[in-house]
């Protein structure tokens, strides 16, 4: 255990870079997936191409994608940009489907009511459909977050420093404790992401947790799932 205390600073540093490598692509990926998913619902003919195409990207194994990135980006093999872009691709691949499902979870009557109140298509999407889609969207985001944290550790095989370093280094040195630190660190980080998204979802959907005693259950129709 003393090893852990002695290396606490390093572990913290690796945890931060791990969180960045997994977290930044999550945010960028969400920003890309939202308009793509909206377009897929807006133009149903394009939906199979958008959803299926992004799904195909997810089938590419992570180690292969990391290695192929320099070929696409023209970067050097050890550039961190490879990992950021690859993780963003995976995030988009997972989230486009989630966005489509999430927007689909908005009750049609609600969307029609918004139109009747004078919302244009874009305004309706942003002000009415997007907030109501948050629960389904958040569950997709949680899957992507846990997936990202795990995939990022694979990058240690190529030599990007993050918590995965303890896995490869521990294996090479036959040092179980170090592997344990890597695994526990990854799991804790995944839990932290999960928790953050849950809290964010709760803050963004106050109606889903409204005090139901006062007026019976006024918001049931709004709870997307």
């Amino acid at each position: 255990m003393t090893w852990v205390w002695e290396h606490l600073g390093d572990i913290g540093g690796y945890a931060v870079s791990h969180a960045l490598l997994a977290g930044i692509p999550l945010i960028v990926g969400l920003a890309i997936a939202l308009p793509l998913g909206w377009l897929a619902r807006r133009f149903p003919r394009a939906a199979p191409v958008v959803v299926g195409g992004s799904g195909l990207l997810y089938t590419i194994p992570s180690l292969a994608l990391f290695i192929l990135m320099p070929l696409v980006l023209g970067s050097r093999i050890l550039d961190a940009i490879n990992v950021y872009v690859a993780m963003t691709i995976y995030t988009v691949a997972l989230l486009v489907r989630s966005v489509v499902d999430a927007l689909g979870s908005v009750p049609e009557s609600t969307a029609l009511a918004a139109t009747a109140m004078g919302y244009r298509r874009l305004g309706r999407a942003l002000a009415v459909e997007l907030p109501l889609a948050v629960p389904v969207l958040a569950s997709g985001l949680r899957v992507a977050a846990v997936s990202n944290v795990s995939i990022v550790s694979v990058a240690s095989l190529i030599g990007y420093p993050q918590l995965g370093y303890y896995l490869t280094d521990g294996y090479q040195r036959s040092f179980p404790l170090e592997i344990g630190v890597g695994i526990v660190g990854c799991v804790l980080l995944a839990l932290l992401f999960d928790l953050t998204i849950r809290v964010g979802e709760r803050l963004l959907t106050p109606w889903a947790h409204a005090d139901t005693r006062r007026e019976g259950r006024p918001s049931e129709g709004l709870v997307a799932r």
Partner: protein
Amino acid sequence: MIIQIWQWLTAPEQWTGSRGIPTRLLEHLGFSALSLVLAAAIAIPLGLWSGHTGRGRAVVTGANAARAVPSLGLLFAVAMFVGPRISSNLAFVIPSVVVLVLLAIPPLLSGADSGVRSVDPAVRDAAYGMGMTGPEVLRQVELPCALPLLLSGVRAATLQVIATATIAAAVSLGGLGRYLIDGLAVNDYAQMAGGALLVAALALGVDGLLALTQGLLVSPGLTSRPSRPWRRSPSHSRHGKFPRSGGVAGGRGRVLAPAALTTHGRDLT
């Protein structure tokens, strides 16, 4: 760079011998198939049982939670503990296969379980009402109705296994991952990228085949029924040979797995 990769891919020595692409490909497919069969033998009966009886849900939930463990960590941990305890030349193979089986179980389990659970209760009641026994209902009604989700689980597990088998080259397993790891060790980018292209092509090809199989196996009656809101989205109608019945609740959509199961099932590597 692309020229070098092409030269590597087309060099004659790459296509013969025990280090050639055909051998590596067969190794990769062999390990993956073995692991999937073992995992399916464990997980699918268990998932069907838990979906049918409603018991053992804790196992399914637990298996899903275990997905947060990074596959690379699991691989190294098992290789370190199991490897030295096996003296034969299987010492490199068994730990990897154990890990591949462990990683394939959660998607298979939750696919089978949620597949059976998602069967319309009215359909199940009708089957019992017709005098079917529990096992008959499971085999003749619940299993066919569970196929879309079950097969999504199989696809997710397959991708997971193919991807992790690639990484398992780091603990000395054969297969296409060798090119990635060996190329890295000697700083030979052409070999790494060539191997990576092969791995990507393999994953895409296998997934495409499974998607076709899924389209053939799933009853057309399941693919065009009006369905719940999240299925209503006009999503994902690639593959599938049956004429769409259109018009039913935007019914172009096939019966889709809940998001958590299709692409999402494969959450690691």
